[in-house]
């Protein structure tokens, strides 16, 4: 379990706090997604959840951050790294540079932890399989695509067996293929065992389909904390400068003019939207009218 209790944090030499009175408690095994406009505090939240705030960044922190009932301010950063893994945006920056092959790169954290060689080999082989990069094991980490590097970064964290994995916009610097690769890896991770996952993201369509919970940050505060359905269909979401998925906007507009089935919830995934629109009887009759008018030569 990982929790923030009324956390307010200000970076050094900055006037405004980056997080204000944030309280968030994430139970084991939950997949919690965090969204918000740029500058809302998503990265700061990720750093707080992984112990880098306050240890790496210093600055002013009030409130408590607990990881499995351990107060992060009471222990060193080194003691926290085994419990929480952190993956962030730039895949290249996460390649340590200390190792020449992907296999050794994944081993890097385990070597630092002092894991015995035999166990290291087992864990690495298993992790490479899980993340789907076993075929890259002997390549240089710097000779990979962004998506591949990001998966190596994820594997490097997973090999350390953390209870929680925090990902800060892991696909924002990737092309569509890389994005898909990373999301599939995360999804496999969630489906197979109980790692708690906290994912800060902009790509709402994907989150909507898989997240258990969606938290919205604005100006350093949590302004919404609910299920993806409730958050993404809430009309006030646009106030927080979050790009509401087009199909939600379309469905909402359609509902107002009676083209969305009245008894149906607004869609949160593209599939739901397609289903909803094709099942709408008023929409089918409109289609019929259009076809007829075209045939009559207008």
């Amino acid at each position, binding site marked *: 379990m990982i929790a923030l209790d009324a956390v307010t944090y200000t970076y050094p030499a900055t006037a405004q706090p980056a997080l204000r009175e944030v309280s968030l408690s994430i139970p084991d095994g939950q997949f919690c997604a965090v969204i918000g406009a740029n500058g809302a505090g998503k990265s700061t939240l990720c750093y707080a959840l992984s112990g880098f705030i306050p240890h790496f960044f210093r600055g002013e922190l009030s409130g408590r951050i607990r990881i499995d009932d351990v107060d992060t301010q009471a222990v060193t950063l080194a003691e926290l790294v085994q419990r929480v893994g952190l993956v962030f945006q730039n895949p290249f920056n996460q390649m340590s540079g200390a190792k020449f092959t992907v296999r050794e790169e994944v081993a890097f954290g385990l070597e630092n*932890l002092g894991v015995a060689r035999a166990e290291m080999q087992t864990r690495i082989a298993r992790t490479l399989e899980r993340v789907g990069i076993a075929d890259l094991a002997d390549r240089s980490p710097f000779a990979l695509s962004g998506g591949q590097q990001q998966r190596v970064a994820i594997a490097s964290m997973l090999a350390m067996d953390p209870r929680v994995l925090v990902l800060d916009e892991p696909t924002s610097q990737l092309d569509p293929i890389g994005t898909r690769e990373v999301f599939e890896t995360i999804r496999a991770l969630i489906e197979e065992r109980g790692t708690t996952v906290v994912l800060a993201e902009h790509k709402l369509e994907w989150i909507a389909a898989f997240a258990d919970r969606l938290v919205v940050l604005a100006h350093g505060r949590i302004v919404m904390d609910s299920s993806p359905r409730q958050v993404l269909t809430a009309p006030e979401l646009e106030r927080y400068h979050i790009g509401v998925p087009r199909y939600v906007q379309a469905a909402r507009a359609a509902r107002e003019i009676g083209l969305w089935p009245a008894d149906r919830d607004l869609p949160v995934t593209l599939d739901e939207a397609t289903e909803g629109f094709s099942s709408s009887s008023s929409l089918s009759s409109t289609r019929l009218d259009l076809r007829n008018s075209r045939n009559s030569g207008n």
Partner: protein
Amino acid sequence: MLIYLTGRSGRLHGLNPITKVMLTLVVIVCGFVLPGVWATWLVFGSIVLPLSLWGGIAGPLLRAVARITLPFAISLFVIQGLFFPGGTPILSLGPVSFKAEGLQFALLFASRLFLLSSAFMLLLLTTHPGLLMLALVQRGLPANLAYIIVATLQIVPRFQARAASILDAQRARGLETTGSLVRRLRAIVPLVGPLVLGSLVDVEERAIAIEARGFSLRRPKTSLIDIPDSRAEKGLRRGLIIAPVALIVARLAGWLR
């Protein structure tokens, strides 16, 4: 940037890195402690050359050593040959003449440079830097230092490649890289921004990334890779210490002239 010859399974490649380090040091000490140019070439011919042939790297080694020492050799023979202070002329080229002492000086220094670089090439061509660093760390080299060295070896080629591509892009936009000195100097300016500033800003994230993998943990680190070693090599290393020590003692005692 790595001059390590991958893909060759030569006999030298399989030796323990420390054995090779010791060989290099022995060659250097012997070559410099024994007096006279002939001694330098004796060490090369009796140790370095046979080993490089045995290891299958003689060709690349000689090419690399030639590339390195040639500019110096030329400068030495020309500059010191012609302008050595207070020398006795033996060959005239119009107003200037080659001096005997100058040529001897040049020969001595060129030979030493040749030996020095060949000794290092023997090590570097056959030893993967990652393995070398690991072996040294296991013998007491600070792990942070090993990290810096390995990271540098991986970052430098990318930097050079990026610098080259930035220059190419600028050239395509009309940047002049030949011609007057000022123009060539100006060619450096567009590099500073993207190459230097960008990489400096990234440093913070890179530090976070390795911290998140336990870089600062104070406990003893283990290693995925096991470095090959054999009893024969261990014995060889113990034996290798004798020759240079004996030579240094002999030199200091004035027995070698």
